[in-house]
């Protein structure tokens, strides 16, 4: 399950989130074939690459949703891939925020319910949870939409509620997988503005999966995934090694 030779623990200043030589297959399909990525504290990194290259699998491994077949995943100096399922799921609830392309909101619940939900699951009191939810909805320009069922919202509004729900717990990392994938480019950019502004204000680290260059341009830097391997062409270019 784990690599034979343990790597040294990351030194301070290393990545908050890090994948080292991560291998992950689905049956006989190799999705990741030795992926390396290190994301620093407060950094916003875009993970780009063609469809099927392994971007989502990498994000799921970094977030402790998938266990790698081989390799290591680190979070704040600890081996995420060696934690128990309980510990990982606690981390996902308390330290990570998620924004996906579609359907993470419960359509029958109101926006406020959806945003308060992660806090309620973390045993925050009802009153406090709804108050916090209201604050975040207002911050994302949805102050008047708290009572709406999320199923009745427009695509852009729903993604902003999803963003509020990711931010409400004060996550240390936001994992976003094609967060604007279902939106037109104007609405998508408004969502990206909010994501980036709030992440910067809170010092939140962001791993942003996207195939769209305009979306990636909101990040501090980008890496490319190809055939399950990560390439950082900014470094390749800078080193002029060829």
């Amino acid at each position: 399950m784990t690599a034979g030779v343990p790597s040294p623990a990351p030194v301070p200043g290393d990545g908050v989130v890090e994948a080292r030589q991560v291998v992950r297959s689905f049956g006989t399909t190799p999705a990741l074939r030795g992926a390396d990525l290190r994301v620093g504290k407060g950094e916003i990194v875009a993970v780009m690459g063609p469809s099927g290259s392994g971007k989502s699998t990498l994000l799921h491994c970094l977030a402790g949703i998938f266990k790698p077949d081989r390799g290591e995943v680190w979070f704040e100096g600890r081996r995420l891939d060696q934690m128990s399922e309980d510990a990982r799921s606690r981390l996902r609830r308390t330290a990570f925020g998620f924004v996906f392309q579609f359907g993470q909101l419960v359509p029958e619940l109101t926006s406020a319910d959806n945003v308060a939900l992660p806090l309620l699951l973390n045993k925050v009191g009802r009153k406090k949870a709804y108050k916090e939810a209201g604050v975040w909805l207002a911050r994302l320009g949805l102050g008047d939409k708290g009572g709406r069922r999320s199923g009745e919202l427009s695509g852009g509004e729903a993604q902003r509620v999803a963003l509020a729900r990711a931010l409400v717990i004060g996550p240390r990392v936001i994992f976003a997988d094609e967060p604007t994938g279902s939106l037109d480019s104007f609405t998508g950019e408004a969502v990206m503005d909010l994501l980036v502004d709030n992440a910067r204000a809170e010092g939140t680290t962001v791993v942003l999966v996207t195939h769209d260059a305009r979306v990636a341009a909101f990040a501090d830097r980008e890496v490319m995934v190809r055939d399950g391997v990560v390439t950082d062409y900014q470094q390749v270019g800078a080193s002029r090694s060829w």
Partner: protein
Amino acid sequence: MSIPNMLLGLLEREPSHGYELKREYDTYFGRGRPLPFGQVYSTLARLARDELVTPGEVEPGEGPDRKRYRITTAGKEELEGWLATPVEPEPHLQTVLFAKVVLSLMLGRPAERYLGAQRAAHLQRMRELTELRRGARVVDGLLADHAMFHLEADLRWIDLTETRLAQLAEVVAR
């Protein structure tokens, strides 16, 4: 456009006479705009002056084209530097990008790495424009958007070219 560097690339492939260089250039890069003979010779003369190429012995025969030029070590370094340095990300650079890709493939150099570095340079420019656009007045925002769309088109071309490198390598191979 960088005709001197393109000629250096063709010369790194093999030493050549001016008229052969012109023919090769027109085949790969001319696109209906053939390189005038005069420009070939003046460019070769300048490259020779700068010691990036050396003319061989004068061969017997008629006309000015009796020297076979070969690239020097300094010429190879010059070429390497040109290929490895991303083009300034701005609209309308297809021709030079294309020339770099074709030459890299001809010379067995890693074209995909060059394209990767170019992609990074383009994305860096898009980041700057995105930053500029955030909170910009509408006029500046629209101008930035215009530049962004062009850069995006380049990026698509880079992605597409990357998936076609093997095919292109076959075409430019001898």
